[in-house]
């Protein structure tokens, strides 16, 4: 193909890509404008200087640090818990080949597809009965199980391919099932487990419906819920919305840059599996 035809396609693709990231750029530009500058120059002008008071005000008003701590705590605990649960399940299904494993697996798949709307009210009601309503623990428990449904599904198919000779050799050397799991299966499956950890963390970070219902007090809310509720109340002016948007975007951006390899590799793993 000639260069004459080559470049228009590339330019078109770059314009498309620019359109995808444009909202982020507009947000970043406007988050450092002062309210006066915003109202006189509008959203499209370049900032005259860097004005960080808007961000600072917003941070303090919503106690954003606390929200970050909550999100990290909840997402981190869920990622770890769900991986442990997935590994145990997948060990029994993929390597133990327990009887009825096809049905067990189908059960996990369907559980994974269930809309949260069909669980939300009973979960809300039961957690109130159990005294766990409006605690971070309740959200951690629920999402550990929900994420483990997917993790079981993926890991079981990965472990189904695990080289049997290694396990047999370890068993002959006298290792019990527990030792085989932690000393052999887990270390060998580390790449897949790493992918799951990252995905569980980000998925839980982004969850909205259940945390919205379960976490009502300011001290327990996650970043997503706090921002979503603020937006829903329509109480924010333009500058505040902007600060909210930027502070919401930044952690996602950090995850994206840190985990980009894992994210794309993870999707590749699954698509090939």
């Amino acid at each position: 193909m000639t260069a004459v035809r080559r470049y228009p396609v590339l330019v078109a693709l770059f314009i498309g890509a620019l359109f995808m990231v444009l909202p982020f750029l507009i947000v970043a530009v406007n988050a450092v404008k002062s309210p006066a500058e915003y109202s006189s120059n509008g959203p499209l002008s370049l900032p005259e200087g860097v004005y960080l008071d808007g961000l600072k005000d917003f941070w303090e008003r919503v106690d954003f640090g606390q929200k970050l701590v909550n999100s990290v705590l909840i997402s981190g605990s869920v990622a770890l818990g769900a991986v442990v649960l997935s590994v145990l399940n997948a060990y029994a299904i993929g390597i133990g080949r327990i009887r009825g494993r096809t049905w067990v697996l189908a059960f996990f798949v369907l559980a994974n597809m269930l809309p949260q709307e069909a669980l939300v009210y009973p979960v809300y009601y039961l957690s109130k009965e159990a005294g766990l309503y409006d605690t971070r623990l309740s959200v951690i428990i629920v999402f550990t199980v929900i994420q483990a449904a997917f993790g079981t599904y993926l890991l079981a198919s990965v472990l189904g391919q695990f080289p049997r000779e290694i396990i047999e050799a370890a068993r002959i050397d006298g290792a019990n099932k527990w030792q085989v799991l932690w000393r052999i299966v887990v270390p060998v499956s580390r790449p897949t487990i790493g992918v799951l950890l990252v995905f569980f963390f980000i998925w839980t970070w982004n969850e909205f419906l259940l945390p919205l219902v379960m976490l009502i007090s300011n001290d327990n809310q996650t970043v997503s819920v706090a921002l979503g509720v603020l937006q829903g109340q329509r109480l924010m002016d333009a500058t505040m919305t902007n600060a909210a948007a930027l502070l919401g975007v930044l952690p996602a951006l950090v995850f994206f840059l840190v985990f980009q390899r894992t994210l794309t590799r993870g999707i590749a793993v699954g698509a090939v599996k």
Partner: protein
Amino acid sequence: MTVTVERGGRGGRGSRRGPGSRGGDVVEAHHHAKGSRRPRDSYALFLLPGVLAFFAIIVVPFLMNTGVSFTEWQGVGTPKWTGLANYRELMDDSEFWASFRHSLFMVVAMAAVPTVVGLVLAAALFDFVGKHFGSRTVAVLRACFYLPQVLPIAVAGIVWSWILAPENGSLNELLKAIGLGSLQQDWLGDPDLALYTVMGVMVWVQIGFPLVVFMAGLQRVDPQLYEAAELDGAGWWRRFWHITLPQIRPEIYVVLLWCTIAALKVFGAVYVLTKGGPGGATNVPSYFSFTTFFEKTQVGYGAAISTVLTVIILVLALAGLKLQTRAEDAEEGLRV
């Protein structure tokens, strides 16, 4: 929503393997030779915590929800059994039908459009940009398209509702700046327009997922196929149609299925962008059940809505998985 669908990329196709491959038979034979014990089943202990947790957190609440859908209940006191009354009421509820109609629009925005655009983009990036401009350029472009996928939907909603604001919103300002001021709209506040605006935002959110899955799928296509086709004088579109599409058909099934399910579940975007408004113009089943549960506190009726949604999703999922397995079997048959 956005991220949930990623599960599909990896999940959907695993079922093909797993149970019943060669390794297991060797072990079984080994054990049978030893005696009639069934040592296999002691692995069931490892499943115990998982199964118990699933019953407590998913099965029990789900059954409760289904049970409540046959009752009238305000969330306190004893539910009153009313049989199918809630479902009969749903059939006559125009709000219910409207919410499912809007779901179809969401399927277009979150499954159909992203799949088609994702296919063209993936093929263009893989087969054209990758070949002529190197993998660096591909990686940068792919990252740009994928970025909205890692964003919490609540944050995406804030970003867009600010951009789409009727006064001082960036989009309207931009239109004014380029002399198209007459096209300015109240994008999310106009009942005739709001649904299409939400659809546009969802396309933006969703497009990265099919793109990344398709690009991963293209990696396993034999490059010789393309070379041979090129030697035969096939143009880009013909290669796309006759090689790319058939080769990554399994990925297309997975993406369509998972994006459709994600579209039926969409909640956060509607909550943050429009709250189902204006005047119910963007109401969807999940948001409808949410408000019925927690604002109207008609728990029985809300449970009925979510049960209908669940049945639709499960039927779709089973049909999709079946179709996919059959397609894969057929394909494997052809290859052998």
